[in-house]
């Protein structure tokens, strides 16, 4: 059930039979699976996860210290749902969509107390509703009936709830109002008896309906060279970022949240560090949306369930996030969801599963781990919505494999589903090569379907250039094996030169400084120009070598090292033009 409801007490109360950490068993509770219940004298929020005889097992979203048998359990009779409506953006929630800023005020303490609840959106705030339908219009499920300016960036579209009508059914609008309303007031009445307000609820474990899933053909441009250039993700695509600790998962996720060209960002901090979430909370309101200069928070909804917050709420926070994402998708927006980290989510499942004494699968994870991961990533995609618009949900999940070992179940089960794989590497990180995405291991299965977009929008030979870079890097990998044994100077000249070209690819192109104001975001045009500059150097250098210039002289030229500065140039076009000319001139002057 949604916390916005003020349901009258339901009579099917039960009594606690036993308590073990977040798992509570109740007797005589008349409940359905996944119903939300309130547990104990303090009314801790929980969810039904198992029913056996007259015993009902509940996972509790709050700390259960001091809760004992005999205390009541009250059923709400409704599944865990989120409140949807204007106010979801620019908000920060815990895993069950309680707004953390409101909780701080209600609790009067910096600590999260128990048994305090608040609706996901402000029910009293008034919004300016502007209707887009008239009395007599026929509307179907999901159809837009009005618009609210939710933030400076985003117009919130008020829709007929998807469960108000059956598929293909339409009904007549019988009354419409425009003006200032709070989210609970009716703004549109329909002939079938539905009162449409700006507030909807949706059970988190159920995907919102859509008409059709389509093949994604537009990239989610991230402004990160190695991602856009080598391993792009599509709008509506799925990606995994696995890596051991310290390899930069969170920074990569933050970069995507800041610079990806999605309309809406849903950022789920699932079981991660408190200070990291604080950084997001402090930074995002100050940062500008690269698309329009508005505050970044105006397109962002944050869900923060840090590692020390209750484990059951960690299990649900991923669902809360994806349901919010689907709601904005229904309005026709491109939504990107970042989940950091899905491993913590899987561990929450494992913890609860083991408290239920279920038969464990691999490494103690429940046997349904693969199914749950697949269900989650399947809710991403490029969709034709029920109201005829098109929208997308891109899902990007960080994975934290124990010991950095990618053969563990969460990484493996994720890889079977996602189509983009960005492998983070502790060794690159240790050498301070950031982003430390390993170019030999990573892949993107969207490359081919996205190439036409890049060729139309950026350059005709986008795919060709990328292949050149991949070839050079592959060759370097092989050569480095020899270098390790005999040293670089023992290689023939042309191979030494290949290493030099590869070095520019690594240091200028693949490395990108997330903390430099200019380099942090690299538009695809700049990514492309940088690559062509390195290729210019490569072509000219090999020409010089063929003409008999010793490799030491080529390596020692003055102009080429300026390639490393392209990243930090704001007026890069001019810089690149000049640099290419200088490189050619200098190298040609050697012979």
């Amino acid at each position, binding site marked *: 059930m949604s916390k916005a409801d003020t349901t009258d007490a339901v009579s099917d109360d039960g009594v606690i039979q036993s308590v073990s950490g977040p798992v509570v068993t109740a007797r005589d509770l008349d409940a359905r699976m996944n119903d939300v219940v309130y547990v104990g004298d303090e009314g801790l929020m929980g969810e039904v996860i198992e029913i056996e005889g007259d015993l009902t097992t509940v996972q509790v979203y709050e700390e259960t*210290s001091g809760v004992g048998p005999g205390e009541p359990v009250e059923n709400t009779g409704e599944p865990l749902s989120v409140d949807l409506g204007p106010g979801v953006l620019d908000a920060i929630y815990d895993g069950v969509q309680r707004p953390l800023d409101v909780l701080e005020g209600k609790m009067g303490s910096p600590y999260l107390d128990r048994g305090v609840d608040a609706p996901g959106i402000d029910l009293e705030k008034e919004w300016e509703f502007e209707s887009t339908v008239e009395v007599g219009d026929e509307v179907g499920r999901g159809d837009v009936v009005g618009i609210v300016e939710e933030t400076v960036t985003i117009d919130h579209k008020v829709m007929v709830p998807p469960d108000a009508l059956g598929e293909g059914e339409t009904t007549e609008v019988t009354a419409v109002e425009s003006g200032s309303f709070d989210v609970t007031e009716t703004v549109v009445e329909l002939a079938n008896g539905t009162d449409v307000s700006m507030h909807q609820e949706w059970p988190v474990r159920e995907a919102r309906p859509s008409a059709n899933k389509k093949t994604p053909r537009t990239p989610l441009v991230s402004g990160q060279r190695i991602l856009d250039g080598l391993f792009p993700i599509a709008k509506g695509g799925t990606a995994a970022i696995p890596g*051991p600790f310290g390899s930069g998962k969170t920074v990569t996720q933050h970069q995507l949240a800041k610079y990806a060209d999605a309309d809406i960002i849903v950022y789920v901090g699932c079981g991660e560090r408190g200070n990291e979430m604080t950084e997001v909370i402090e930074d995002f309101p100050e940062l500008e949306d690269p698309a329009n200069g508005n505050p970044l928070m105006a397109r962002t909804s944050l869900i923060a369930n840090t590692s020390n917050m209750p484990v059951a709420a960690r299990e649900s926070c991923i669902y809360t996030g994806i349901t919010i994402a689907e709601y904005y998708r229904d309005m026709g927006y491109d939504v990107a969801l970042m989940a950091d980290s899905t491993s913590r989510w899987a561990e929450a499942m494992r913890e609860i599963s083991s408290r239920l004494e279920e038969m464990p699968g691999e490494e103690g994870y429940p046997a349904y781990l693969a199914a749950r991961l697949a269900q989650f990533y399947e809710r991403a995609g490029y969709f034709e919505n029920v109201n005829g618009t098109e929208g997308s949900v891109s899902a990007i999940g960080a994975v934290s494999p124990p010991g950095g*070992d990618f053969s563990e179940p969460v990484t493996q089960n994720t890889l079977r589903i996602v189509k983009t794989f960005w492998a983070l590497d502790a060794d690159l990180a240790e050498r301070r090569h950031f982003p430390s995405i390993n170019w030999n*291991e990573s892949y993107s299965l969207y490359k081919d379907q996205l190439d036409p977009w890049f060729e139309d929008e950026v350059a005709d030979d986008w795919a060709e250039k990328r292949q050149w870079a991949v070839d050079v890097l592959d060759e370097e*990998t092989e050569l480095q094996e020899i270098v390790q044994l005999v040293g670089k100077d023992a290689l023939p000249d042309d191979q030494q030169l290949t290493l030099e070209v590869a070095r520019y690819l690594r240091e200028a192109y693949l490395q990108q400084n997330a903390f430099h104001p200019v380099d942090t975001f690299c538009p695809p045009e700049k990514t492309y120009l940088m690559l062509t500059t390195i290729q210019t150097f490569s072509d000219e250098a090999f020409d010089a070598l063929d003409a008999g210039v010793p490799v030491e002289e080529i390596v020692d030229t003055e102009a080429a090292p300026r390639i490393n500065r392209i990243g930090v140039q704001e007026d890069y076009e001019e810089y690149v033009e000049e640099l290419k000319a200088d490189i050619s001139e200098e190298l040609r002057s050697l012979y």
Partner: protein
Amino acid sequence: MKEYQTITEISGPLVYAEVDEAIGYDEIVEIETAQGETLRGQVLESSEDVVAIQVFEGTSGIDRDASVRFLGETMKMPVTEDLLGRVLDGSGRPIDDGPEIVPEDRQDIVGAAINPYSREYPEEFIETGVSAIDGMNTLVRGQKLPIFSSSGQPHSELAMQIARQASVPEEEEGDDEDGSEFAVIFGAMGITQEEANEFMEDFERTGALERSVVFMNLADDPAVERTVTPRMVLTTAEYLAFEKDYHVLVILTDMTNYCEALREIGAAREEVPGRRGYPGYMYTDLAQLYERAGRIKGRDGSVTQIPILTMPGDDDTHPIPDLTGYITEGQIYVDPDLNSQGLQPPINVLPSLSRLMDDGIGEGLTREDHADVKDQMFAAYAEGEDLRDLVNIVGREALSELDNKYLDFADAFESEFIDQGFEQNRDIDETLSIGWDLLSGSAAGGAQPDRRGPHRGVLPRGHRERDRRRGRNGRGERGADRGGRGLRASPR
């Protein structure tokens, strides 16, 4: 308060008793044995007729006739500013023959999570006086930065050095009118009496005890008590930091013993084990400790944590360091090879990391040039370290002049920058000056890493196995059996 003589089962540290009233989860229990001894415990699982109790002192001496009393409250820590200068046992009872402690408050030791919205992002420098930390992996207030060590390494000396020397710059400038003083809370879990004596002697000798609270759970104290000690420590820390405005540095040693205790309880309860027999909820459990570090908006104090853990087999893929690394904001590696070379402290800066460093250094915090010096030293030292492998094969003569300079730099860096001794206290200016001298000194004059960049800076996977072990483990002799990270899936 009801008393029961209804014990039905005793197994390891656990006692099961039948009850006929509601007992709260986590409640405190007293068990009186026939000999008149009183043991304390905590409710692990509560159902209508049976409760499972974990007994802190161990179950020896308990029989079916022992009486069980439920105190009707969860575990509390009596807190007061007067705790400073005191030595307590692992359950928070004084053991130093001092006066009775009159608590100002009794606080629940299971701390509630700090609302992420109420936190303040840590970005103020703590000076430890250790160059390898201050210069290369800076600690900031509100951070949790563990020391990854292994058996036989001088991590205790390092911890004592930090406890003794740590200060916040504003304290030095003398403007502590706002009351933000520095305090150290030391939580020992399962350390030996000998180690404990060393700590205590050092604390007393240097006068550090005055600003410290010491919690001692020794190796022969009950293992189960270890699960309570860090919570006592952190409750005290939070009280001093957020109610009394202290900058509190918490040192927890040894977290490995804590995790062993968790495993022991998990095994006794016949839980489904996770990796290597540790309970599946160990991540959550550790997070509930480590995440109690931080700063809070509108409060002057801060809680900074330095947990110390000894990695079994010096393997950082073992569940304890692994889960810790995923929660903490970086880590400091103590390296057996540097130790055998006699470096004090033997910190390997290359795999070490402080995630919050970038926001905690620079003008107004440490020094304007800090980031530059650090970056150049990292690059030059990494390059020098890399070359040492090659030297073993081809000899120094076969290397270029530049490569030789990198090698010289790496040697000088270790002997002058890292090896400062456990007694020397360097302020940040001194640390950075030594760094500058090394970089600009004749040895590394040509090794300006930002001009040409390290040639072998980054190698693709596969060739790096060996380097990695060297980076983590010294020169690679000991890495052969560490398969964990090598087992990566190949995507293609």
